[in-house]
């Protein structure tokens, strides 16, 4: 009796041990690279897609669009949306691509700053959407300069969520009290003159604007269309010198405080009364300084010369289809329904405050609402006016590396401990050397 029980238990253990081994082997089996031949899926089939995103507002919108797609297109459609922290998402995505698609989603939101990393190596791991976008006419409906962020060597791998036009946000009450009307600025020269009326001890007209944002306003960027490093170009150095002059010559600008919390505290206290920011910055203001409701307004950026470009671009996120997906066709159909439709784009603006890069949506009255936070201003009108002028931002496999290296030296430049020309040249040359080694 006792003996049989022992044997039974032993058998159980052996079975458990083998079962465990089986699991490990099964995991190894899955790790083998899967063939790159995605199967087309038919119209109303049972299909579950997985999507990764790093922002909760995006996740909400994706879920809403999936519901919409299920109702209108494919009742058998399921979308599993995972919210993953910003850097983790891209680390995990790269590992999944590297291992042949193990655990990879079908669709992923890839932030433009992280996209360059995927261009490094054999292939980015995303489906080339160029032909689909062109033959179905979507390329003309999207703001072309925005698609540059997800394009490389003539291939487009993603669809942009946001137009990201850069404008000047300002505290209407403060500027008005100083007798200055920012809506009448046409050039940065006008801005500096006006800002001198506003800046007092402890009150700065603005934090140092981002160098790359102003550089793009002037039509250049850290990389050009051919992927060459342009960080140390004369225009880039001159732009940096101009930014430094805002503080050291004109006395109207100051470094951004040392943490997000410190920055918003300073804004709340009225220590900074204007800021250069993209459309999404409107949402940041509402979330972080709700008590300043009604006091902020937005205007087009002052131009570098009369009649010049009145905007730039900053940020962005593209939706990409993984080329390891088994359901590429269904994913594409879903992206058309959500990313490339007027309804989808309008809903996204309503749910996430991201102004769409999809031009047919701009006329929708739902994109032109009076925003109480901005004193009843119609921000959508401003964004859509600036939309066609948004400059391109070119992608490079080395962008992350350049930004990481520049970031470490930027403070020394802003404090004039090292000349901008030297720092830019040094970082640019390091990146050029890296590029030549590959």
């Amino acid at each position: 009796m006792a003996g049989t029980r022992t044997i039974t238990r032993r058998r159980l253990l052996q079975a458990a041990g083998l079962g465990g081994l089986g699991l490990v082997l099964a995991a190894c089996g899955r790790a083998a690279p899967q063939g790159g031949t995605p199967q087309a899926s038919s119209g109303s089939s049972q299909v579950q897609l997985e999507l990764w995103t790093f922002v909760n507002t995006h996740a909400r919108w994706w879920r809403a669009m999936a519901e919409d797609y299920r109702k209108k297109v494919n009742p058998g459609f399921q979308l599993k949306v995972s919210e993953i922290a910003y850097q983790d998402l891209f680390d995990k995505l790269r590992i999944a691509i590297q291992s042949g698609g193990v655990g990879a989603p079908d669709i992923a939101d890839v932030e433009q700053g992280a996209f360059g990393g995927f261009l490094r190596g054999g292939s980015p791991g995303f489906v080339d959407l160029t032909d689909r976008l062109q033959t179905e006419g979507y390329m003309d409906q999207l703001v072309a300069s925005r698609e540059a962020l997800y394009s490389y060597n003539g291939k487009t791998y993603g669809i942009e969520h946001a137009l990201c036009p850069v404008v000047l946000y300002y505290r209407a009450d403060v500027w008005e009290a100083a007798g200055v009307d920012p809506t009448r600025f046409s050039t940065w020269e006008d801005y500096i003159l006006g800002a001198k009326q506003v800046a007092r001890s402890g009150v700065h007209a603005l934090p140092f604007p981002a160098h790359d944002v102003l550089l793009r306003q002037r039509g250049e960027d850290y990389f050009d269309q051919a992927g060459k490093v342009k960080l140390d170009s004369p225009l880039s150095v001159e732009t940096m010198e101009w930014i430094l002059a805002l503080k050291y010559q004109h006395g109207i600008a100051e470094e951004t405080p040392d943490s997000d919390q410190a920055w918003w505290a300073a804004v709340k206290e009225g220590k900074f009364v204007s800021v250069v920011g993209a459309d999404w910055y409107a949402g940041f203001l509402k979330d972080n300084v709700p008590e300043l409701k009604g006091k902020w307004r937005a205007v087009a950026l002052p131009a570098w010369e009369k009649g010049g470009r009145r905007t730039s671009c900053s940020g962005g996120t593209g939706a990409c289809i993984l080329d390891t997906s088994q359901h590429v066709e269904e994913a594409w159909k879903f992206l058309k329904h959500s990313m490339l439709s007027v309804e989808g784009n309008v809903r996204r603006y309503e749910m996430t405050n991201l102004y769409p890069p999809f031009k047919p949506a701009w006329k929708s009255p739902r994109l032109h609402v009076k925003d109480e936070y901005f004193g009843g201003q119609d921000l959508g009108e401003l964004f859509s006016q600036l939309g066609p002028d948004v400059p391109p931002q070119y992608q490079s496999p080395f962008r992350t590396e350049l930004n990481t290296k520049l970031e470490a030296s930027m403070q020394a430049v802003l404090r004039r401990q090292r000349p901008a020309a030297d720092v830019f040249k040094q970082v640019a040359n390091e990146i050029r050397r890296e590029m030549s080694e590959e």
Partner: protein
Amino acid sequence: MSGARRMKLAPYLFISPFFLGYAVFFVYPVLRSLYLSFFEQQGVRSQPRFVGFENYLQLLSDGLFLKALLNTTYYAAGSVFVIVPAALGLALLLTARGLHGREFFRLFFFAPYFTSGVVIAIIFSIVFSRDYGLINNYLLAPLGLPKVEWLRNPVAIMPAIILVGLWHYLGVNALYFLVGLQNIPPELKEAAVIDGAGSWQLFRYVTLPLLRPILIFVVTIAIIGSYNLFAEPAVLLGAEGGPNNAGLFMTMYLYLVGFRFLDFGYASAIGYALALIIIALTLLQLRLMGVFREE
């Protein structure tokens, strides 16, 4: 025969889950990264190219790697010469006679250890703020001291990280010492007191020698922990380690090279260099403390 073999097999199967997990998640990655460290591989889905010891040679002339090594060593020194002595001091205070609220203080100093490094870093990013931070406004200002840019001044960054380390690890190190102190037989101290030893002599010639095993353990753990530190500096300063890379630790550089610049081969070489440095320092430290000495 078959039954006897089964009897022998069962225990191994019983312990196999751990070893299988260990093999898959530890042994394999360790060997794989050793293999990778002799290759150059840029980005995902690219073909690795054999480069021999080139990655290791490159480390010697890589300014950022040397900077990270220097920064990490700075922190390790702070850990051994600031955090460990402070923990010993705290342990002595906590064992002092007639201390009220002893249990409370033990918990008070130990509690930070339960918190994740990421959470601590987020809290300290507020504490260190120049204009709104706790330290500048409530510790330095009342003493008439100027504001310190803890996270922006390259000279202040490492002291700031050591301060975070002090807050995080003081309690747990003090706990080790506390155990050691409680294991010292009271009669030895009594005998020394009867022989006329003062409190310093008591500490120097009785307590400290008897604490040696604990001290060796704590210092070893402190060195290994220092060279593995990642979350606090990475969250406080960003993965590049803040202005002038003043807070770039070796683990952060490994992360940057591997996951941002996608050079897995070079990142593996950094990982192995890090492991070798930790082993060498630990052996040196054990030797200095006389672990290998014949008793």
